[in-house]
């Protein structure tokens, strides 16, 4: 009896156990089932925000050279081919460029994909034609994707739909990874047994036998541990998945999930992204050899990395091609030409993503004010910026070339020179290029935004503007004799001119054009430091400024971005503008979420700013920045200011034409003195950039209350058109010199050569 009871008990226990076990398993399955479905249908991936550059506008008369267009098309991943037949292709010749655009859905309008011909004459676009219809006046290319804002796990995504994957690609993938994909129900017993056989033969684990479904489970739901337990879990999960979803759904998810490479800290998931990462083109534009390579990459992205292991990659690619051929998916001609084709992988440095870390930095900062990090990196936002890849490219070239050239000239004394640069549109306040350091692709300290270095003479326009507002005119005489000021702390401030000379009198405009320190210091003190600070604020400097006399000579530290804001106000006729990197933010479907529109506020009156603009032009024509016109064409009018800080630790130049404003800073991070000044350093980089741009001259109409008068240069007194040494200078009505100078064919104390005297005598 006892024995039977014991048996019963044990039996019951075993049953209880198995019942309990069965219950647990069922609950587990139900939960897993629920979990799988929820993940699959809900928000499956944290989709990073996409950041775009400005779309290139093509219109008749636009200042765009054929070469510039080529740069943009290259950045967009266009293939240059002899015959342009599908989107993503282009052909460039001397007088025209044929483009088959990809089209883009902008918030305000849809640009459709179309084949257009751009006609040139010199540096100007003269006509845009289209095969089917009449001439076009305006068309926008799709914007370059310049980066993303990624979630903390650093996964990047470029989501694609199943129909964006070429048929040939799907075939290749299935052929090499899961031959029976369409037949099995999640797991392939044939696949597993085949793998086991291969493993036994080889004596080690070489094949997994996993179906695409299992791989998806592995990537999607489970961690990447390769344990038996995990492998076993895959099986029911794969079966469950297949029971709920179609092959198409699973395949699409797979295409977007599979791990395909690593870019530094960022993982490359999905074929859409991999196509861009390896070939700089959308998946739909890739050809057979490229598709075969990608399909083969799944097995081991690092092992078959086409950049680091090209031979292995090629072998793997050709294996994929062979399988396709054996399955009659491709014919002998396709097979032969594909396996003999080069890998076609682009260099990482020519990828647009990752090429603009300094600009993206500015974008992120401006965004962070409005969007929390989480939303930025998981909602698939689209951010449209003002970056101009063409201008950025030119600026980078100019800065890095200048730094190399300076290092060659000055050798050890300048080794390790660093720099920062900002380029804006002076009319709209848009930031079009940012350079954070001499290694432009390196995401490190962003000197354009964060370096705060004494601006030196760049501050002087504020002093002279204050003077004009207080009634000084351009020929008011200033005292440029030695100057010293006793400071409250007992020391004495004794500024000096750069050339160490001094002058008793100098006209106001000459003092600024030649950047004299003594006259500026004296002038500033008599105007009042508070007034100069007020002017600086009205010019757009937001940082608190301490009222020390040394402020007048630029002891204040500012970043290149802050300097750009200041000079922007000068370039735009006295209108302060926020410098914007972002135009608009939309959600993943294109609906606008926020915009950063054109804003401005007039803080300096038209007339005063006009007089300042004259002096800044004089600086570039005859003053400290006159070397500009050694390489700049005469008819391109530009204005600007050189800046060299105390002990020559900083070399600055800020200047503008009609359509470009740029600020350049050069210096050592550790503040060591430089063997260069603003003129011999930063100015060279600025000029090198500007002469490569298609510039419009700086022009400002004479304001109503300003008149141009003929002035004798030497004395600053009124003169006449026909008089020797006369120039036209602007004056506020009612504030002009009253004394008139003597006017003669020659000045009396000039020694005259005999011939000239004879000429004169002819008429006496």
């Amino acid at each position, binding site marked *: 009896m006892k024995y039977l009871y014991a048996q019963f008990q044990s039996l019951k226990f075993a049953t209880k156990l198995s019942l309990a076990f069965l219950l647990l398993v069922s609950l587990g399955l139900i939960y897993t089932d629920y979990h799988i479905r929820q993940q699959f249908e809900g928000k499956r991936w944290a989709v990073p925000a996409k950041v775009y550059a400005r779309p290139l*506008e093509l*219109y*008749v*008369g*636009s200042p765009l050279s054929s070469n510039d267009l080529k740069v943009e098309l290259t950045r967009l991943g266009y293939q240059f081919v002899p015959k342009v037949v599908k989107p993503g292709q282009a052909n460039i010749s001397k007088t025209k460029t044929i483009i088959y655009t990809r089209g883009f859905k902008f*918030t*305000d309008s849809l640009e459709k994909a179309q084949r257009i011909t751009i006609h040139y004459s010199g540096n100007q676009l003269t006509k845009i034609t289209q095969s089917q219809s009449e001439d076009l*006046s*305006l068309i926008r290319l799709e914007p370059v994707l310049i980066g993303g804002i990624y979630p903390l796990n650093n996964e990047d995504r470029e989501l694609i739909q199943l129909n964006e994957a070429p048929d040939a690609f799907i075939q290749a993938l299935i052929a090499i990874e899961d031959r029976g994909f369409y037949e099995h129900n999640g797991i392939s017993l044939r696949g597993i047994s085949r793998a086991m056989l291969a493993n036994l033969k080889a004596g080690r684990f070489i094949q997994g036998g996993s179906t695409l479904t299992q791989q998806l489970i592995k990537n999607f739901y489970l961690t990447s541990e390769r344990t038996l337990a995990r492998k076993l879990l895959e099986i029911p999960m794969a079966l469950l998945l297949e029971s709920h979803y179609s092959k198409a759904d699973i395949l699409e998810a797979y295409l977007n999930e599979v791990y395909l490479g690593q870019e530094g800290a960022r993982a490359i998931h999905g074929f859409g992204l991999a196509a861009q990462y390896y070939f700089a083109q959308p998946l739909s534009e890739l050809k057979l050899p490229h598709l075969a390579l990608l399909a083969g990459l799944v097995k081991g992205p690092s092992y078959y990395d086409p950049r680091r292991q090209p031979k292995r990659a090629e072998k793997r690619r050709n294996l994929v091609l062979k399988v396709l051929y054996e399955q009659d998916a491709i014919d002998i001609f396709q097979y032969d030409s594909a396996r003999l084709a080069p890998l076609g992988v682009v260099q990482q440095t020519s990828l647009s993503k990752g090429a603009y870390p300094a600009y993206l930095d500015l974008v992120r900062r401006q965004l962070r004010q409005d969007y929390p990090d989480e939303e930025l990196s998981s909602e698939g936002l689209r951010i449209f910026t003002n970056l101009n890849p063409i201008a950025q490219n030119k600026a980078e070239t100019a800065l890095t070339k200048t730094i190399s050239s300076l290092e060659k000239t000055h050798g050890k004394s300048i080794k390790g020179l660093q720099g920062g640069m900002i380029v804006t*549109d002076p*009319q*709209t306040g*848009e930031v079009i290029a940012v350079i954070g350091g001499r290694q432009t692709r390196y995401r490190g300290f962003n000197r354009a935004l964060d370096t705060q270095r004494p601006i030196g003479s760049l501050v002087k326009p504020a002093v002279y503007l204050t003077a004009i507002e207080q009634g000084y005119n351009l020929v008011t005489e200033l005292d440029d004799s030695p100057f010293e000021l006793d400071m409250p702390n007992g020391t004495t401030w004794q500024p000096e001119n750069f050339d160490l000379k001094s002058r008793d009198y100098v006209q106001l405009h000459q003092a600024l054009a030649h950047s004299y320190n003594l006259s500026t210091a004296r002038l500033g003190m008599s105007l009042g430091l508070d007034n100069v600070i007020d002017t600086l604020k009205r010019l757009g400097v937001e940082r608190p400024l301490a009222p020390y006399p040394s402020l007048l000579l630029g002891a204040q530290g500012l970043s290149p971005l802050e300097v750009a804001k200041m000079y922007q106000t000068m370039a*735009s*006729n*006295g*209108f302060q503008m926020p410098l914007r990197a972002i135009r*608009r933010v939309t959600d993943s479907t294109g609906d*606008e979420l926020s*915009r950063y*529109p*054109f*804003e*401005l*506020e*007039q803080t300096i009156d*038209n007339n005063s700013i*006009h007089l300042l603009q*004259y002096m800044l*032009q*004089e600086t570039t*024509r*005859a003053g400290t920045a006159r070397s500009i016109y050694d390489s700049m064409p*005469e008819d391109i*009018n530009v204005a600007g200011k050189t800046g060299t800080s105390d002990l020559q630790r900083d070399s600055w130049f800020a200047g503008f034409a009609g*359509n470009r404003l740029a600020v350049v800073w050069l210096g050592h991070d550790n503040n060591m003195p430089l063997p260069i000044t603003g003129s011999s350093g930063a100015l060279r980089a600025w000029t090198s950039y500007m002469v490569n741009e298609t510039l419009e001259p700086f*022009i*400002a*109409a*004479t*304001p*109503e209350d300003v008149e*141009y008068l003929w002035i004798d240069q030497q004395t600053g007194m009124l003169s006449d*058109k*026909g*008089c*020797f*040494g*006369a*120039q*036209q200078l*602007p004056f506020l009505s009612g504030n002009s010199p009253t004394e008139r100078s003597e006017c003669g*064919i020659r000045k009396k104390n000039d020694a005259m*050569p005999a*011939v*000239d005297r004879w*000429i004169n005598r*002819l*008429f006496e």
Partner: protein
Amino acid sequence: MTLLNTLYWPQARRLTCLTLILLVSACVFKPSSPNGLATPADIAKAKLIAGLAEQAQINKPIVPVSPATIEVDLQNDAVTILLDSAKAALLQGDLKSAQTILQRVQRIAPRDPNIYYKLASTHLDMKDYKLAENVALKGVSLAQGQDFQLRKFWLMIADIRMQSGDIIAAEKAEHTASRY
């Protein structure tokens, strides 16, 4: 060194002067007296002209004199298309789209006062008075020398100020408009 720069060389100056004098003399020495001889008036005239010619070369402007007004290319089709498109958006009451389009055209033709006029009116419609006025003032600064435009802008500024409640400033703006 440009060609103009070379004219600062004394030799070049002399050569130019001599050439000019010869050319000018050829034109000027049409004797005004019946017997074909040059009168003192003729000589004085020649001296003045030759002198002016020489000085014109020497007094080459260091800084180009700014124009009385800025010419804007009115033939730009792209601008026309976009402005029409903005107008259409405005008629539909879609101010935001209109602004987007206007900012797009501003990038293409940043000195065209008409664009700023339209942009200012969209801001006015949105009751953003401060921005509307500043955009209009920018239009004023670009339209210097064009009375018709200036009058339009100052009238708009008067309207903006009136709507924002600043009557005195509105009257000032109207007064300014009446000058054109």
